[in-house]
């Protein structure tokens, strides 16, 4: 079975909610829809206080290159446009809507039938994706239309669909592949058309063989789509690792996947593309996994964007008594939440309750030079060295040692027997070196 060549770790899978049918979370009384979804500029609010909005109505217009439209996920009255806390604990503009009924825009096709045929031109597809405000649903939330617009002089050869879901605990993509197989395959064919490629490969880790079989069944109905089971290894869902696992090509340091002719999209994103292009439905809801070791009934839920976490926790059986930490996303790359007064953003893939016995970091010991971090780094870096240089603020040396190639997967911190905070210092170095490089570029120009 295929997998990426270098490094990687095997964290305990703990996929308690695997195979649990998706349920729908009821509408809350108020939604808080962030205008900024983790990366890029905040969108500009298109509605004003007191305005009545319908489900699917545009409420935030993209501002700048890396920015996406935001749509109302509920119908009701805009109560205010104010700053709200995001998962980072910082405040960014958000639209607060008091929910009244469930009144959808007329152009959204709510019929259950699957529309297979798409006669749109590539640029029309990309325009529709941009209008629907679709961002990468794997977690990084990079606007999808930007990824689909191939830069001049480059040519895409293969579309890679990420169904690896290598993070422990998470099962939202798995469940989507089981329930919406046909729609995902149609979404892939639409994306293939948009970037003008004849071949698409879906990579799925082999702990989800039911999803592999389901997608294989539907893939036979379309041309050029191949489903490849992958050996289970973290971080297989990372763009560069997945490209290497599926095509054997290595993305050069500092370059984008298009350099080797690949475009990578998450399965959840392809489903969102299907809904946007075929059903005129903008990105207003997503599947999230609510899970944890002490959660009585872990499960997968459809939630509207902007639903407060407290509402979801209430609906899914409350927070376990022994919770020490609540994480949005997976345990490896997710974010520990500073507060529960947050709401679901486009990139929120799960609410994970970690018991207090596991929530604290272990005692830090000295580096024993075992080189486990070097052996397990999927990017071939030397984390112990980068950490030492980060502690001493040797930014130039960090740059020479390719700190910018780090994908912050956390494999080094996970595997370190001395509990050393490797990623913390590497991330610190990345942000400082990134600023240095940007300053150098602006000075030159």
């Amino acid at each position, binding site marked *: 079975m295929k997998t990426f060549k270098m490094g990687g770790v095997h964290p305990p899978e703990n996929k308690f909610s695997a195979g649990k049918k998706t349920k729908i979370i009821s509408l809350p009384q108020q939604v808080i829809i962030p205008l900024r979804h983790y990366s890029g500029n905040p969108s500009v609010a298109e509605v004003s206080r007191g305005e009545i909005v319908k489900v699917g109505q545009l409420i935030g217009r993209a501002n700048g290159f890396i920015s996406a439209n935001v749509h109302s996920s509920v119908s009701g009255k805009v109560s205010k446009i*104010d700053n709200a806390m995001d998962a980072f*604990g910082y405040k960014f503009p958000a639209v607060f809507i008091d929910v009244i009924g469930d009144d959808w825009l007329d152009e959204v096709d709510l019929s259950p039938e699957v529309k297979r045929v798409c006669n749109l031109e590539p640029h029309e597809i990309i325009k529709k994706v941009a209008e629907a405000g679709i961002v990468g649903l794997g977690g990084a939330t990079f606007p999808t239309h930007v990824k689909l617009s191939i830069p001049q002089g480059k040519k895409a050869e293969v579309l890679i669909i990420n169904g690896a879901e290598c993070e422990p605990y998470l099962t939202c993509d798995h469940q989507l592949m089981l329930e919406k197989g046909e729609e995902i395959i149609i979404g892939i064919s639409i994306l293939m058309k948009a970037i003008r490629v004849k071949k698409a490969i879906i990579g799925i880790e082999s702990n989800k063989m039911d999803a592999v079989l389901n997608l294989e069944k539907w893939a036979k109905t379309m041309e050029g789509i191949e489903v490849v089971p992958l050996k289970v290894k973290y971080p297989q869902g990372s763009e560069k690792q997945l490209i290497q696992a599926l095509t054997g090509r290595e993305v050069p340091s500092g370059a984008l996947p298009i350099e080797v002719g690949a475009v990578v999209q998450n399965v959840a994103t392809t489903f969102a593309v299907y809904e946007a292009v075929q059903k005129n439905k903008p990105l207003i809801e997503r599947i999230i996994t609510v899970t944890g070791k002490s959660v009585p009934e872990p499960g997968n839920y459809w939630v509207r964007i902007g639903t407060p976490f407290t509402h979801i926790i209430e609906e899914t059986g409350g927070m376990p008594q022994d919770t020490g930490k609540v994480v949005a996303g997976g345990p490896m790359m997710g974010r520990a939440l500073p507060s529960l007064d947050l709401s679901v953003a486009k990139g929120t893939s799960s609410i994970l309750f970690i018991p207090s016995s596991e929530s604290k970091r272990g005692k830090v010991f000295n580096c024993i030079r075992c080189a486990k971090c070097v052996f397990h780094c999927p990017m071939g870096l030397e984390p112990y060295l980068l950490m030492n240089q980060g502690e001493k603020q040797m930014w130039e040396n960090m740059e020479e040692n390719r700190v910018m190639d780090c994908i912050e997967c956390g494999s080094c911190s996970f595997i370190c027997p001395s509990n050393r905070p490797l990623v913390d*210092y590497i991330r*610190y170095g990345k942000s400082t070196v990134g600023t240095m490089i940007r300053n150098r570029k602006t000075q030159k120009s």
Partner: protein
Amino acid sequence: MNLILASVVSLGGIGALSAVILYFIAQKFHVEEDARIDEVEAVLPAANCGGCGFPGCRAFAAACVTADTLDNLSCPVGGTATMEKVADILGKKAAAVVPTIAVVRCGGTCEMREKTNSYDGVKSCTIVHNLYGGETGCSWGCLGLGDCEVSCTFDAIHINPETMLPEVDEDKCTACGACVKACPKNIIELRRKGPKSRRIYVNCVNKDKGAVNKKVCKVACIGCSKCFNVCPYEAIEMGNNLAYIDSEKCKLCRKCVEVCPTNAIVELNFPPRKTKIEEPSTTGTEK
């Protein structure tokens, strides 16, 4: 015996030859350096803190010697006294320096600003700042992990373990600005030291709306503009839901301190108040 003699002669010969070569090389590559640079460097504090904007005291001394006037050059550590000595050596006139001091503009002690979550990672403010908003509901205020303390070469700033806020030692602080650069939240500011070290400043940098920050911190500036309206010298600016006192315009009348509803304005080193409010003219003015 022969061996010893041979070694002494040969080694001595090589030594003498090298000395001659080195002498001529030294003549050839001799660098003419202004002798006054050494003299100026001798009177500088030799702290090499970089507070003057130059990489170390010698670079600053060289800059003093080559500059036409000393107007834009000042050593924050040595202050006016040192600059006068430098001026004497160089026969130039030193500009008067208004003494400044580092001021920590956050009053969010553990009592005033409750923790909403706990962080157990690396003890560095910059790393926390990159990661998230901090352990309290206020994402603007002090993180209390002591990047300023580490950056200080003069042992002048320390985190108080009770309040978890940094405190500046007025006698040791030289206003070199290292802590100002080290603080990722931009809380520390260099302000005028003031007559008899008397200072008034807004002890908050939170730019959120008053209703929001009042919930997370009891001593936050809520941007009510009361101080702005009461100030007779137009020394207070309002912006971003926050008041800022211009230390150049402030005449230290303390009226703003009295009207502040959240005690966000702090007065330092003033004598205790009498029961009646003092007249502004008696509290002394800045030059």
